[in-house]
């Protein structure tokens, strides 16, 4: 096995560090705030539209809103724009539901070459899976505790 000589490795680490420090936490936070806020603002606009023109109530208007945002995110991912947005905005593009859709669409596209069943079907949840698994397990425990609590009290 070929080993990387130590000076080479440290110089790479130094290089990586300087590259990393180019973007300060403050810049990242401002970008995340701006983009995360704008995506939510777009969502609010869509909610208003569905409530005003399509007869949805305040409670269920978030369903078509989420579906629309997901559609836009998948489209932008397929056209290659969402990944660029993600590089610029960091968590501002990851935290909104559009980031969730982006992870699914990008893995689906990346594994297309391995076929529709095992490639697209098998890998679609590769990155979105953890969110669903941990969300469902924690929601199960919390809902169980709360339901039993309400039965007892």
């Amino acid at each position: 096995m070929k080993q990387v000589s130590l000076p080479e490795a440290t110089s790479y680490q130094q290089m990586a560090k300087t590259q990393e420090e180019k973007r300060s936490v403050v810049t990242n936070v401002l970008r995340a705030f701006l983009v995360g806020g704008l995506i939510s603002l777009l969502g609010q606009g869509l909610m208003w539209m569905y409530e005003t023109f399509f007869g949805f109530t305040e409670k269920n208007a978030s369903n078509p809103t989420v579906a629309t945002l997901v559609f836009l995110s998948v489209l932008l991912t397929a056209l290659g724009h969402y990944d660029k947005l993600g590089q610029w905005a960091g968590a501002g593009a990851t935290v909104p539901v559009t980031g969730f859709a982006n992870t699914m669409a990008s893995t689906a596209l990346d594994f297309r070459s391995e076929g529709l069943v095992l490639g697209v079907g098998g890998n679609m949840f590769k990155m979105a899976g953890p969110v669903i698994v941990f969300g469902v397990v924690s929601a199960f425990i919390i809902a169980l505790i709360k339901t039993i609590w309400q039965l007892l009290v």
Partner: protein
Amino acid sequence: MIFFWAFVIGGLISVIGQLMMDVLKMPPAYMTTTLVVIGAVLGGLGWYEPLIRFAGAGASVPITSFGYALVNGALAEAERHGLIGVVTGMFEITSAGISSAIVFSFLAALVFRPKG
């Protein structure tokens, strides 16, 4: 006014995610899963719903609302059918996001080729 708060709260939740990555050095997947669990806990405590009433899409668009919606669906169904409802109602509210993400992603994989 709700448009203003949607922007601010949606932005702030993203900032929390960014700080988790920058300060706590969490990889993105750990950050999103943590936010979902936080959303589920806040949902169980009944603290997330006031936030949605206050900030609208600012609270329902970030991924934290996924955890909240899972808990809420489970609890609503449990109220009607007892304990079994926790399992049967789990995806009641989040169906829109997950179904559309599956369908659109699959269609995208049929039509488009990966870029970049």
